[in-house]
C-alpha cells in the first residue's frame, strides 16, 4: 500500500502532507525533535504526534494554523518536490481509463521522472498488480528509489514496484528475474519511437495490451504513431485533455434602476447646489451695491439657505466601498470563476492496442 494504510492518528516517523493554505501543500516527515517553521509560526512535530489525521494544528504563538493530511498519490502530486515536469491528476485519470489500469494490472512506466504517475499506478494496481518503472538519470533514479522505499512501494518490502536504472531506448525493458509480460505501458519519454520496438517482447501473449505515449509536441505524436503502426499496434487514437478548475463565488444582484436613481440624485444635488449658489451670488451683489450707495440692504440677512441638501440613500452609498462577498445587507447570486492557476496544455495522449493475433505477424516479419 502506497505510503501506509489509512489510519486515524499521526505517529512518529509518518509522512504527513501539511495543508498551509489554498494550493499550498508541504510534505513533512514527522520526527519527534523537529519543528516545522513557516510564515504562521512554529509547529513542533511533537505537537502533531498523537493528533488525528485531518486535525488542525495551531502554531505555538497561536497566530495561524495548518491541517495534517494523510498522504495520497493525489496530494503527493500537488506537494512533491519536482525534479522534472510531472503528470497531473486529470491526465493520470484519463490514462488509467484508456489503459484499463485496475487492481491486478501489470504496468511498464518509462521514465520515472518525479514519480507522480508512479505513486498513482502503484496505488491503483494494488498488491495483485505490478509496476515496472525505468529511469535513466542516475540521481533521479536514486531519489525515486529512496522515495519508493520510504513510501512502502518496493516489491522487496511488501510493495508492488520494481525500479530500474536503465535507458530503455538503448537497452530495452528486460528484467533478470523472469520474462516480463505486461498489460499496459506508459511512455513519458522525449523519443518514444526508440523504445517502441523493444516492447514487442513484453506485450501480453493471450490478451490485449495497451500503450500510452505522453508527448507535448505534435511531431512526436506523429512519429510515435508511425512507429506503433510499424510494430503491429492498432486502434491508434490521440486525445487532448482539457481541464478547468472552478471556484464558487458570489456576484451582486444590482438592478440598473439603482444606477439611474443615483444619476438622478447626482443631478438633483447639482441643480440644488447651483440654485443656492445663484441665490448667494445675487445677495452678495445686492450687499455690494448697497454698500456702495450707502443704502441699507433690504435683506439684512441672506435668506437662509434651503434645508441642507438632503442626502438620499443613493447618494450616501460610497461608489467605491469594498463590499465583502456574501455580505447579508446585499443580494447575491451564486456563480463560478475559472481558477487562474491552470495549465492549458500538458501533453497529447497517444493510445494504441496490441492484440495477440498480431504477434504471429510480428514473428513472421522478423524472421
Amino acid at each position: 500500500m502506497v505510503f501506509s494504510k489509512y489510519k486515524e492518528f499521526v505517529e512518529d516517523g509518518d509522512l504527513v502532507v501539511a495543508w498551509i493554505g489554498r494550493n499550498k501543500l508541504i510534505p513533512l516527515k514527522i520526527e519527534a525533535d523537529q519543528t516545522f517553521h513557516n510564515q504562521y509560526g512554529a509547529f513542533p512535530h511533537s505537537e502533531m504526534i498523537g493528533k488525528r489525521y485531518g486535525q488542525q494544528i495551531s502554531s505555538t504563538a497561536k497566530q495561524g494554523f495548518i491541517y495534517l493530511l494523510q498522504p495520497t498519490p493525489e496530494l503527493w502530486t500537488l506537494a512533491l518536490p519536482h525534479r522534472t515536469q510531472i503528470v497531473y491528476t486529470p491526465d493520470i485519470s484519463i490514462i488509467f481509463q484508456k489503459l484499463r489500469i485496475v487492481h491486478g494490472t501489470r504496468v511498464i512506466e518509462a521514465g520515472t521522472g518525479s514519480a507522480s504517475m508512479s505513486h498513482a499506478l502503484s496505488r491503483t494496481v494494488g498488491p495483485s498488480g505490478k509496476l515496472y518503472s525505468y529511469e535513466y538519470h542516475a540521481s533521479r533514479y536514486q531519489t525515486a528509489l529512496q522515495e519508493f522505499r520510504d513510501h512502502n512501494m518496493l516489491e522487496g518490502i511488501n510493495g508492488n514496484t520494481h525500479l530500474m536504472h536503465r535507458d530503455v531506448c538503448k537497452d530495452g525493458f528486460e528484467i533478470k528475474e523472469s520474462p516480463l509480460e505486461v498489460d499496459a505501458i506508459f511512455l513519458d519519454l522525449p523519443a518514444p519511437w526508440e523504445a517502441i520496438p523493444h516492447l514487442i517482447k513484453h506485450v501480453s501473449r493471450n490478451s490485449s495490451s495497451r500503450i500510452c505515449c505522453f508527448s507535448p509536441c505534435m511531431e512526436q505524436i506523429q512519429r510515435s504513431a508511425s512507429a506503433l503502426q510499424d510494430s503491429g499496434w492498432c486502434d491508434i487514437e490521440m486525445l487532448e485533455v482539457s481541464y478547468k478548475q472552478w471556484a464558487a463565488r458570489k456576484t451582486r444582484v444590482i438592478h440598473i434602476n439603482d444606477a439611474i436613481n443615483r444619476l438622478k440624485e447626482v443631478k438633483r444635488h447639482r441643480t440644488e447646489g447651483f440654485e443656492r449658489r445663484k441665490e448667494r451670488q445675487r445677495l452678495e451683489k445686492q450687499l455690494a451695491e448697497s454698500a456702495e450707495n450707502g443704502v441699507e440692504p433690504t435683506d439684512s440677512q441672506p435668506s437662509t439657505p434651503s434645508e441642507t441638501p438632503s442626502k438620499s440613500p443613493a447618494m450616501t452609498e460610497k461608489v467605491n466601498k469594498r463590499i465583502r462577498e456574501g455580505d447579508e445587507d446585499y443580494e447575491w447570486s451564486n456563480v463560478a470563476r475559472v481558477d487562474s492557476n491552470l495549465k492549458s496544455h500538458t501533453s497529447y495522449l497517444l493510445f494504441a492496442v496490441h492484440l495477440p493475433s498480431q504477434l504471429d505477424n510480428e514473428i513472421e516479419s522478423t524472421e
Partner: protein
Amino acid sequence: MLKSSPIIQENSPVFVKLPSENVRFITLKPNNTISLGKFGSFYTNDLYGKTYDETFEIYEPKKIRVLKTREVQTLEEEKKTNQELIDCRGNQLMSQEEIDKLRKQIKEGGLRGEEAIRQLTSKSLTFDQKTQYAQAKYVNRKGEKYLQQFRALRPCLETVTEYMLAHDPYKIMELTADCSTYMMTLGNAQPGGRYLVVDETGCLFLGSLLERLGGDSKVTLIHPNEQPNSSCLELWGKEYTEESLVEKGILRTLNWLQVVGPDEALKDMYMDDCSEEQLSEMKLRHRKRYEGRKASYARLQSTLEDFEKGNFDALFVLSNHTPMSVLNLLLPKVGSSRPVLVYSPYQQVLIDTHHELFKWSHPFEMTEIKNEETTKDESAEEQELRIAQDAWIEKLIMLDIHEIRTRPYQVLPERTHPFMSVRGDMGYVLSGLKVLSSVGTVAAGRFPKRQKQGSANKKK
C-alpha cells in the same frame, strides 16, 4: 475475485462492435446463433476460447475466424485536387438491382465484402480522380456497410459507459468515463478500501468502481428505492450481479429509510427464532424462506452496524436529489482527512452545493486526544476559553469544481486533426477533503472578537 478473464467463455458478456460503429450487448449463451443483420451471423460456441478485443471476420456464412492482416496505406505525394470533380448520383455505374445482387451474394457467402467494395470502386466514375485520402475515406464508408466483420469488446469502464451513453444517457445521468475515472482517482480508490456510494446512474459508477477495486474492498450503496436500480451491473457479467456481490461481502446496500430509521428497519424485519422441532416440521420451501429471511436480517444488522461506525475512506455521490440534502446525512460518516466527491451533469448544482459546503460544519466528539494539555489553575474566563477552544467541528477544505474534457484527434499521415463531430461532453465533479477544525483557533491576521462561530479561517 472480480478479475475478469481476457478469454471469451460460455455466458460471457460481449460488446459486439459492427463495421457501422454501432455496438450491441450480447450475453453469449451456448448453442445460439447471433444475427448481425446485413453483417452476417455466427454461432456463439465459436467465440468460446477466443480473446476479447480481436476482430472476427465472417469468411463464410456462420464461420468466423480472427482477422489477422491489417491493411496499411502507403502514401505518395498527392498531386490530385477535387477542382474538376462533380458529385452526382450517376457517378456510380452499378444500378440499384446490381447492388442488391451484391448484397445477396455477400449474405449467401459467395462474395466477400472486400470484393464487393472493389467492384463498387471500379464502377465509380470519379474514384480514380479522387485524392488518395478521399479514396481511403470512400473505401472506409463502403466498409461500414459491406464488410462481414465485428469486434468482440470486453466490458470495462470505457466500453460499458460508451454503450450506455449511446443507448440511454439519461438513465446514467449522462456520466462520461472521463468523469467516472476522475472521481475514482481523486477519491484514492484502491484495493482493500471501504467506500460509501450514492449512485443513481443505474449503478454504472458502482460497476466502474468495483472493476477498479477488485474483490477485497467493501462498498456500501445507499439508494432511494426498495431495491437498488443496478441495471448496468449486469453489463460486466454474472460476477457483478447484485446477488453475487452481496454474497461475497463486497457490496452492502441500504435504502434511505433504513439510513434514517435503523431501529425501525430492524424491527420490521425481525423474526423470532424457530426451535429445532419447529424447523424439522416445516416444508422445505418454508424452511428455505425462513432461512432466507434470517440471513437478510443478519445482513441488514451487520450493514447498519458498519454504517454506524462511519469512518469511510471516501464518499461518492451521483444523485438526482439535491446534493446538500444527501451530504447532510452522510458527511458525518466520512473519515477525517478523507475525500468527498459529488457528480452533477450541471455546473450550477455544484456551485450551489459548494457554497453550502463552505459553511457546513458538524460537531465532533474528540474522544481520544493523546496529547492532553494539563489544566493549571485558571480563571473562569480562561476555563471558558479553553473549553471553547477544545470544541472541535468537522468541515470541508480544498473545495473545487472540476471540469474535465477530452478532445479526440485523428492521427493519420498528412491528416492529423481533431475529429469534426464529437458528442457534447457533460458533467462536472465537486471535490473536498474532510478535516477537523478547532472552534477557538484563529487564523493569522484575524482577531478573535470578529470570529463567527465555527469558522475560524476564511481560506478554504
